[in-house]
């Protein structure tokens, strides 16, 4: 069974709220403190991107099960302007925040699975999963 809860991202306080949600779920699933910090940082980055570039959107945290593995899944969705060149934003050193190891490549590194789909003028959906070891 999947448990899901979502936070609408409208302002910076919502980033804190979704971090808190993610941390709680990560704790429940039994992630250690370092992985908890990694997961919340990833959630934070995704929520911040929505807040900064799309204006508003939603981040959902799910418990995921696959082949007996437990994991945490983040879904970040917005109806913003979309990303024209995904390859470029996935490049190291590109991020508009100045190539500090953060941005989407950072999220990809922090998580085990990462997928992104985007349509211009329609929005972006990013799905990332971290598996419990």
């Amino acid at each position: 069974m999947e448990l899901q809860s979502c936070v609408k991202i409208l302002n910076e306080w919502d980033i804190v709220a979704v971090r808190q949600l993610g941390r709680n779920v990560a704790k429940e699933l039994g992630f250690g403190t370092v992985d908890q910090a990694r997961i919340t940082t990833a959630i934070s980055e995704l929520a911040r991107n929505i807040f900064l570039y799309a204006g508003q959107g939603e981040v959902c945290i799910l418990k995921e099960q696959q082949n007996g593995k437990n994991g945490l899944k983040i879904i970040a969705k917005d109806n913003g302007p979309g990303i024209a060149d995904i390859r470029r934003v996935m490049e190291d050193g590109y991020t508009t925040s100045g190539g500090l190891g953060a941005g989407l490549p950072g999220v990809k590194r922090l998580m085990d699975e990462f997928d992104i789909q985007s349509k211009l003028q329609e929005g972006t959906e990013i799905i990332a999963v971290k598996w419990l070891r």
Partner: protein
Amino acid sequence: MDFRDTIESKYRDIMNNYLNDQNEQSLYQAQKLSRKLIEHHIVPEEIISLHKTIMLENELTRKSFSDSFDILLEVMIGYGLSYREHQSLRTEQLALKSEIEVAASMQQTLLGTTVPKIDGLDIGAISVPARQMNGDYHHFIKDENQCLGIAIADVIGKGIPAALSMSMIKYAMDSLPENRHNPSAILESLNRVVEQNVDPSMFITMCYGVYNPWNHKFLYASAGHEPGFFYSSENQTFQDLDGKGLLLGIDKKTKYKEYELNVLQGDMIILLSDGVTECRTKEGFIERENLIGYIEKNIHLHPQEIVANIYKDLERLQEFELRDDFTLIILKRTE
């Protein structure tokens, strides 16, 4: 106030707030601080030391001692990301580097030229790129009449773009009809190729000369190339190899004038690229007169040793850092 001076108070505020009630808000602040710290090139050991200082200020319970590390961990996640990004950029850099190395050795094969043997003429040539790929080009061609054609060219600029342009000169030279070795005709056809195929912001200078060992005449034309020297053994003087001509690639209708020299026994023809004369030392550029001094110092040697010695001297003068591709060719009539 400088960001650096505010770090301690910011970190302390975040910490005290968090120790109070372990709120997510403080952890988010810590993550944002982490981003700022990296932006301002604050190294992680400074943060560890700061953490320790702040910890020692308070009487800490076992619990707040342990909680404080949540903040430190949150800050370190940013550094961890930065570290991993650095690692993958390094891997990428290594890949690029080896790709360039392959390209450079390909270029060497493509542009390679061997110094031909001509009776009565000693030849020395050296060409060293400033970076991995050479934007200078030189080539020797000996025709069936024993006449020696010498091409020397220099792209304004260096590195890979320059090297790519040079490959084009090489192909254009290769496709010239065998029976055409008048310097002016060669420059005129190359000029048309360059004009059609090269970016308008890229210019090539070139000098083409032909030495005829039967009548000992040296015929040459120049397309804006750094003038070489003619050394008269009889008068023991150096004179500039004058030659006026527009750079290649500017105007497709350019005509090039031919110049002729009578070469007596012991005379030398010195061709070079501007990487030789624009060799910059602590005291400024070396002058053409200085260069003549270096040639004179070695004048009793075989041309190959002369060019090698001059390169060594100038390399040392520039503290082993070439700023431009370096090409030097010397021909000496021995009999």
